[in-house]
């Protein structure tokens, strides 16, 4: 069993990180906080998940969210997708393992992966609407969000959702408010099997190694850690029984990265676009200085008169 994070003391304590600890801030140039705080991570061990949805409930509860009553279409996923109110969602996959012949119930807790290189933050046009703290947590700052939906295009995991009520973007905050006072996220607190554990990224990797060894000893020879390098690693990691096939787990991206379309849009286009506009205006100015105005002469007026009176 992983050591349990103790309950908080009743006395209020100061937040351990905040505005001064940002390493990235959307649409802004900042000096990253240095040195960085210890990197944190949430580890989701899919092999230990029993699909009870306590994490979903705890997430709603802690973040004061209410999900609409939905309809049952014959699957366990409830609601059917992430929403502005459902920041984490159990996704159930029935997988018939061709090697063992066993039916495996793969239950993946979907939600923000807190990428080290966050595509949402790269795409965001509103200064400070998306921030990354020096401990790795990627957070949406509602007050600065303009609801454009660029984060949806930037995210390689299809996580952010735009509310139809207030037109703001929502996603898992990794309970940054809880982590700031030394607690783990609400989902981790609620998990009855320790399928979700929380700590420093190094501790989580070490614990994952232990879990992977255990899984391998039980015949899952491809068990492994999901910490995709395409986004420079994530601060939410999975232990997967079949780490060679992440896509089995309700379409988890095999090799997530920020889309080249987004990189081109936010890289080349942004700078070349401004340059092109300034260059065009500059050409006009230069032309006017060199060539001067194109004026109608008295001769032109006389010719027109002659023509008109013919």
């Amino acid at each position, binding site marked *: 069993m992983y050591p349990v994070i103790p309950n908080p003391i009743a006395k209020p304590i100061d937040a351990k990180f905040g505005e001064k600890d940002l390493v990235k801030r959307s649409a802004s140039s900042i000096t990253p906080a240095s040195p960085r705080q210890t990197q944190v991570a949430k580890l989701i061990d899919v092999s230990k998940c029993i699909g009870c949805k306590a994490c979903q409930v705890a997430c709603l509860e802690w973040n004061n969210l209410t999900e609409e009553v939905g309809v049952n279409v014959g699957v366990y996923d409830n609601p059917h997708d992430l929403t502005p109110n459902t920041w984490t969602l159990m996704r159930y996959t029935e997988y018939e393992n061709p090697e063992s012949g066993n039916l495996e119930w793969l239950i993946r807790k979907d939600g923000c992966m807190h990428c080290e290189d966050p595509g949402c933050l790269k795409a965001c046009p509103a200064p400070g609407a998306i921030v990354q703290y020096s401990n790795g947590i990627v957070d949406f700052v509602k007050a600065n969000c*303009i609801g454009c939906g660029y984060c949806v295009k930037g995210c390689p995991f299809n996580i952010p959702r735009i509310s139809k009520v207030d037109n703001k973007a929502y996603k898992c905050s990794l309970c940054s408010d809880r982590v700031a006072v030394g607690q783990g996220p609400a989902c981790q607190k609620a998990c009855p099997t320790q399928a979700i554990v929380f700590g420093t990224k190094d501790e989580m990797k070490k614990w994952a190694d232990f879990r992977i060894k255990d899984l391998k000893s039980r015949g899952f020879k491809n068990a492994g850690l999901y910490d995709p390098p395409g986004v420079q690693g994530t601060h939410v990691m999975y232990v997967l029984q079949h780490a060679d096939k992440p896509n089995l787990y309700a379409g988890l991206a095999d090799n997530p990265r920020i889309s080249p379309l987004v990189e081109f849009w936010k890289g080349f286009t942004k700078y070349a676009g401004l340059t092109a506009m300034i260059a065009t205006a500059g050409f006009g100015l230069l032309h006017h200085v060199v060539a001067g105005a*194109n004026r109608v002469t008295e001769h032109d*007026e006389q*010719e027109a*008169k002659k023509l008109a009176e013919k």
Partner: protein
Amino acid sequence: MATSTEVARGDAVHRGEPVTVDRYTTGARINHWITAASLVLLALSGLALFHPSLFWLTGLFGGGPNTRAIHPWIGVVLFFSFIGLFIRFWKLNLWERTDNVWLGKIRDVLTSNEENLPEVGKYNAGQKMVFWSMSILIILLITSGIVIWEQYFGGYFSIEQRRLAVLVHALAAVAAICVWIVHVYAAIWVRGTISAMTSGRVTGGWAWRHHRKWLRELVSGK
């Protein structure tokens, strides 16, 4: 000439001192200025979301969320307004062989050496290029704009489609702004042009110098 090919409805010559020529009707001018105002507002609100250093422009529209909400609606206004301009002007903007000759002598154009250029109808090749590139760019902008109009159309398109649309939208907008700069600059550089869109009239000398074929047809049509 039985039918004139270069004259639009409302174009007319008034003899006098100086000769004046009606170039744009009141309807065409109102149509033009609605389009122009929309385009300027779209450029300002769009640039605000295009580059972080221009985000302050959202202040002109009442902040970020308002800018995000208003921009697409102005786009709708521009689209329908431009359709009006398109219907008015497309025929006289059809490409002709002399337009290639005119373009081939671009050096004479830029040095105001008008006498070396072929006689031009209501629009020269440069104006036609502005017209057609704006037509194409506005179609690109409205279609890609709808795909990324999160509030109403967010659910109808895949994320990959939306990524492509946002890139197309940015590139087309940059091109449209550059074309717009050329359009405005040409109107300033060629003195006597702006009155065509304010009072609707130009002087006979202006028409003789820049659109002689148009003037000839107008006169002979009388």
